[in-house]
Every structure is written in structure tokens, then in C-alpha cells.
């Protein structure tokens, strides 16, 4: 026959509502972690994709005339002579179409648009060229040429991404704080409800730690159980997100933003949330009980 616990904590109201509260907390925390981790991963992907590249832009004439071919050839020749440049390639029609598809769609004839000539420059590994100096040299053969190093754009992107990651971390921290406060409140309520039994087991010879163990494992069970429910909700949401992406309904699938991808560290953090919530409950409940009983005579 299974042994009953000395304190009937399973019958408390908190045993019914706390798991669902924790489930929602874990769900929100998991979404924040997933969002932050996915954004971090996307920024890393952008950074890796754009590192060591420059984009040279040859403008069209003032009256909208196209860029002369000899000017393009001279620019490519000059780029090929500069040490540190591994490859310089003019973006052709299909490449421009792919580049503009997120904004204009696949069916637009980009050749009919008054676009500048774009040259993709790949630098040799470890080489850094000053985009202003390079632009000055290129303007000798092609006036009005500009060079985009992507640095300022990436810097802004990194700052925004970093702020979003800090925000996600703050949300997770706040959720943890709310979890701690909730466990403190429910533990104190439990101590008040079961004061006669707590006093009795004390008189029988129970130490504060003996009483604390009953509360701490109850909090651990509720935290783990609630966290498990929250994790299931999260996985269902991820599955729904994946399905939506497969239907082509997400912007990431059209190329405007990278597709949602949760890196391994993000998965580990999300999957660890129920256990973490159980441990937060355990430690908080134990500390609350010992602190409360310690004030008794």
C-alpha cells in the first residue's frame, strides 16, 4: 500500500491551478527563448553570408540611359587588378530577379526596370578593403560608382537583434520572477492551511527540513508537471509554425526574412524549461518553508 504524505498538499487549491499557471509561464518563456534564439541564428547567418563581400553599384545616366558596357568592363578589369579581391561578378538578370522577388514577386521583368549595374565583389579571406577608397579608385573609370560594404546595415541589424535578444532574456527573467513569487505565495498559503498538522509533526519531533521536504517535492512535482504541459503547448505551436511555413504563408519562405530555425542551444533551453521550473519550485518552496518556520519560537 502506498504511503500517504503527512501533509495533504495534493488537496490544496494550489495543486489544481499552479500547474496551469506554470504551463502558461513555460509556454511564454519558450516562445521568448525560441524567438531570441532564432533571431540570433538568423543574424549569424546574415553575417556569415555577407562577411568578406562588397557590392559595387554603377548608376545609370542622368536621363535614365543604361550603363555603357565599356564602363562595366573597365570596372571589372580594375577590380580584378586590386590585391585582396578574389572575384568580381556582375549580377545578371536571374540574380537580380531573385534579389528583388521578395518585394516585386517572381513574374516581374527586371530588365525593363531602370536598375543600376550591381557587381558582387568577394574578398580573399582575412582581407578588409576600405569601401570609400575603393569607390574613389573605381570612379576614375566609372563616375558615380558607390561601394556598399554592408557594415552600417549589419551594425544596425546587430543592434536591433541584440535589443530583441535582451528583451527576450528580460521576458524569461520576469517569468522566472513571477514563478518564484507564485511559489512563495502558494507555499505560505499551504503553511497557513496546514498549520495544525505542521505544528503536530513538529511536536512529534520533525525538523524544519522534514516539513520543508514535503513542500519542496510537491512544488517540484507541480513545476515539472506544469512545465511539461507548457512544453507540449510549445511543441504544438512550433509544429503549427512549421506547417504554416510549409504552406508558404510565412514571410521567411518568400526570402524577405530567413526561415524560422531554432538552433540546438535554443532547443536545449526550451526542452530544459520544465525541469528548470521544477527546480525553481523546489528551491523556492524549501527556502520559504525554512524561512517561515525559522521565525517560529
Amino acid at each position: 500500500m502506498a504511503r500517504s504524505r503527512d501533509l495533504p498538499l495534493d488537496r490544496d487549491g494550489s495543486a489544481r491551478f499552479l500547474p496551469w499557471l506554470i504551463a502558461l509561464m513555460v509556454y511564454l518563456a519558450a516562445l521568448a527563448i525560441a524567438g531570441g534564439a532564432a533571431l540570433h541564428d538568423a543574424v549569424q547567418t546574415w553575417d556569415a553570408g555577407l562577411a568578406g563581400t562588397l557590392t559595387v553599384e554603377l548608376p545609370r545616366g542622368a536621363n535614365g540611359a543604361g550603363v555603357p558596357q565599356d564602363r562595366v568592363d573597365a570596372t571589372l578589369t580594375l577590380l580584378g587588378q586590386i590585391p585582396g579581391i578574389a572575384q568580381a561578378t556582375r549580377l545578371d538578370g536571374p540574380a537580380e530577379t531573385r534579389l528583388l522577388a521578395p518585394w516585386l514577386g517572381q513574374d516581374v521583368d527586371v530588365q525593363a526596370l531602370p536598375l543600376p549595374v550591381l557587381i558582387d565583389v568577394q574578398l580573399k579571406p582575412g582581407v578588409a578593403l576600405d569601401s570609400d577608397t575603393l569607390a574613389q579608385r573605381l570612379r576614375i573609370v566609372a563616375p558615380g560608382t558607390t561601394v556598399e560594404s554592408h557594415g552600417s546595415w549589419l551594425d544596425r541589424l546587430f543592434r536591433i537583434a541584440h535589443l530583441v535578444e535582451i528583451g527576450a532574456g528580460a521576458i524569461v527573467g520576469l517569468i522566472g520572477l513571477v514563478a518564484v513569487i507564485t511559489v512563495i505565495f502558494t507555499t505560505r498559503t499551504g503553511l497557513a492551511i496546514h498549520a495544525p498538522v505542521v505544528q503536530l509533526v513538529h511536536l512529534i519531533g520533525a525538523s524544519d527540513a522534514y516539513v520543508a521536504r514535503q513542500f519542496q517535492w510537491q512544488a517540484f512535482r507541480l513545476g515539472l508537471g506544469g512545465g511539461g504541459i507548457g512544453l507540449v503547448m510549445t511543441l504544438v505551436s512550433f509544429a503549427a509554425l512549421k506547417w504554416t511555413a510549409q504552406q508558404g504563408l510565412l514571410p521567411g519562405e518568400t526570402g524577405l526574412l530567413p526561415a524560422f530555425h531554432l538552433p540546438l542551444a535554443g532547443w536545449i533551453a526550451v526542452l530544459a524549461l520544465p525541469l528548470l521550473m521544477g527546480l525553481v519550485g523546489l528551491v523556492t518552496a524549501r527556502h520559504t518553508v525554512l524561512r517561515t518556520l525559522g521565525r517560529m519560537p
Partner: protein
Amino acid sequence: MRYGSGPEVLHDIELDLEPGGFFFLTGPSGAGKSTLLKLMYLAERPTRGRITLFERDVAVLPRAQLPALRRRIGVVFQEFRLIEHLSALDNVALPLRVAGQGEGRVRDHVVDLLNWVGLADHIHALPRELSGGQQQRLAIARAVISQPSLLIADEPTGNVDDAIALRLLYLFEELNRRGTTVVIATHNQALIDRFGHPVLHIEGGRLERRPGSRMSA
């Protein structure tokens, strides 16, 4: 001893209980019997004065050391104070579990004792499923399961008929013969006369010790 800023319930009491003794505690209602018992089983600490229990001054004993002392004391509360959601077996086993004894030994020991107090057929019963007398025997079994050095009983015969009261007193005497010091608060003068142990009479906050004199049964 006083509660909060109220009047002193007990004062100028000097009492020395010899180890292995058997004592009745008497006095009118409100005289301070329960307060004295609470001081003995460490539910309260004196506001002034000194209480030495098992050679330790409990008035200044650190809180962390109280549980070890309390495990040497068995208490039968007047209102039983059984844990309602626990079976008879689990109620009686509580002092052993609190003391960290192995579960195998706990069960055997508890079943033996429940058999001894006549509750062998009720080991899985909840307290509310037992009669008043059965609950009282259950409370007594819980108090004696760990073979305490000191047994304190507050009106243990208040809810049982004379036959069971007599049987309980014989049980306490048996424990006393095995070395347990016994203090029983009671209003039952017939029992006091019958068993003839020394009487601690408390009245007006003061304590008087009267020698025992056993009457023939």
C-alpha cells in the same frame, strides 16, 4: 509563564520529576495544567525561569536542537490530534518516519502495536471511521510507538468507559515499568486512588506535590 502580555498562568513553580516515575497531574479547569504540559512537551518555552529536560536547559536551547529532544517525548493530546487524511497505520508510524527509521521496520512495529491496543482490524481505517475510544487508543499508540523516555497524556481517559480507562492505565504502567517516565493529567479521582501514584496538584498557578497511596482494587 505568560501568553503575550496577559497575566502569568504559572509562577514560582519548582518541580523535579524523577526519571522512571509515574505522576498524576490534577487541578481545576483553567488552573494551568495544559500550560504546564505544553512546557513539558516543548510546545511552549517559559517566559522566565528554567526547565531542564534530559539534562538540557530548554529555555535557552537552540531551536534546531528541539526536534531531537521532542522525539524522546510521547504526547497523548486531549483532542487526540490525529491526522485526518492518514490511515491508522500511517498516524502511528509518523514518529518513526520523522525519526528516519526504515519503512520495513516501521510497518512491522506499527502493526504489532495496533494489535496490542486492539486496532488490528482497523490499520487502514481513517480516524473519522473510528469511534472516540478507538481514536484515543490510536493517539496513545502514536505516543508510545517510539518508546519515549517521557510520556505525557492530557486527559487520556476522558472519552472512554471505565473498563477501557483501566486498560489504558495498565498500558501506561507497563511502559513505566520499562523505564518511561509518565505524567498523566486527569480529573478521574477514582483512577488516581486506584493506582496510587504521586499527584502533582496545580491551583492558582502554584504547584503542590502529594505522595501517592495505592488503594486496593
